[in-house]
């Protein structure tokens, strides 16, 4: 029997190594795997490269992981939010590296990793500071940048419903980065609001096929912020 369900956070986090690249789903608070991030804080892996749209908020979750000195490098699109105080301090102090990636390029680099595409061309960021060091190529009279697949060791994702094969569906805009992150990592760990029986999800409506998910943990929480 294929059973990807795990019962404890220790099982969920087992084997995450120092130096890992960790993808963290969510756009703002929505679709963010908060409990799994706390689990990673507990688990202890350090020297991490974390990939997320934002750079943490307040002093919990990703911000806490940074505050503990466990994040060597952030790859994100929008590190400056009102709550990103921990990141900004560490960054000013030179204690954390930052790679800013345009949002569409970030999403596509992860999809490419999942899809066996090592590199692709994009018009985004041509002629800007973020093109520095990147190869430019003219195709049909327009300039493009070469961007590379972004592979990861671990993805932490949040979903609405999951089954024991790891099939996932998301709720509304909770989908965001989660499906592409699930494709791009060797080890994808999902926290799900609802655990359902195998066969309860309609095949036509599954968003992330279970082949992309290694572990699922049932973590219901209040659906209000």
């Amino acid at each position, binding site marked *: 029997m294929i059973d990807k369900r795990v019962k404890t956070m220790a099982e969920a986090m087992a084997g995450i190594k120092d130096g890992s690249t960790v993808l963290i789903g969510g756009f703002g608070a929505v*679709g963010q795997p908060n409990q799994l991030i706390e689990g990673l804080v507990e688990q202890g892996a350090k020297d991490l490269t974390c990939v997320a749209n934002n750079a943490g908020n307040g002093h919990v979750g990703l911000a806490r992981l940074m505050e503990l000195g466990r994040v060597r490098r952030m790859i994100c699109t929008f*590190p*400056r939010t009102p709550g990103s105080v921990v990141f900004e301090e560490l960054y000013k102090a030179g204690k954390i590296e930052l790679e800013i990636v345009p949002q569409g*390029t970030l*999403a596509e680099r992860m999809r490419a990793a999942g899809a066996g595409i090592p590199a692709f061309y994009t018009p985004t960021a041509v002629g*800007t*500071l*973020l093109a520095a060091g990147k190869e430019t190529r003219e195709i049909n009279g327009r300039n493009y940048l070469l961007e590379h697949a972004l592979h990861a060791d671990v993805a932490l994702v949040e979903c609405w419903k999951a089954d024991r094969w790891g099939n996932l569906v998301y709720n509304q*805009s909770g*989908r965001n980065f989660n499906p592409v992150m699930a494709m791009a990592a060797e080890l994808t760990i999902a926290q799900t609001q609802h655990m359902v029986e195998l066969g309860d999800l309609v095949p036509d409506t599954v968003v992330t096929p279970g082949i992309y998910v290694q572990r699922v943990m049932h973590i219901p929480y209040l659906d209000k912020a």
Partner: protein
Amino acid sequence: MPDTATASDIKALGRADMAARLARDIEEGWVVNLGIGMPTAVSDYLPPDKEIIIHSENGIFGMGPKPAKGEEDFWLVNAGKQYVTLLPGASMVHHADSFAAIRGGHIDLCVLGAFQVAENGDIANWATSENDSAPAVGGAMDLGVGAKRLWALMEHTTKEGEPRLVERCSYPLTALGTVKRIYTNLAVIDVTPGGFKVMEMVPGLSFDDLQARTGATLLR
């Protein structure tokens, strides 16, 4: 910059009126992405008799009006992380597919805020200096190159009176040569092959007044 009209003469638009002015030019059936900040307010002024599909970079097509107090759905936010609603006909995709729509030219109009727009259509809206600590780009560079039409919505000058419409941007660029029109608190200006062309001015403002507040030559 010289100031050739007194502030009291000029009926400069407030932020709400700027958003409303831009909203009037959005056509039925367009797929429209509204950037964070001032552009988001455009959705409050869409003509109720036209169907317009508002896209949010986090994967929503078909956003509706703001939810009523107490009716917010935690799982439904826009690019600015504000609560939104869905219209009948809405659909949801993941982030890579959302930006596929943007980069692939499937968005009819994108409205971005800007620090500066140049007369060649360059836009600078993400960082104020090359030495900016941790600048935040979000989806602006993708939107800047991908939409069929890019309109900028911004104050005509900085608080200090420095022009934001310039010959060449001094701030780091977001996208090159893609802005088609600019809506400011003073005017509507098209970016043409010849440069900035004034389409509309607020009451009380003369062409010379506007030119004096602008960092590049204006065409009539």
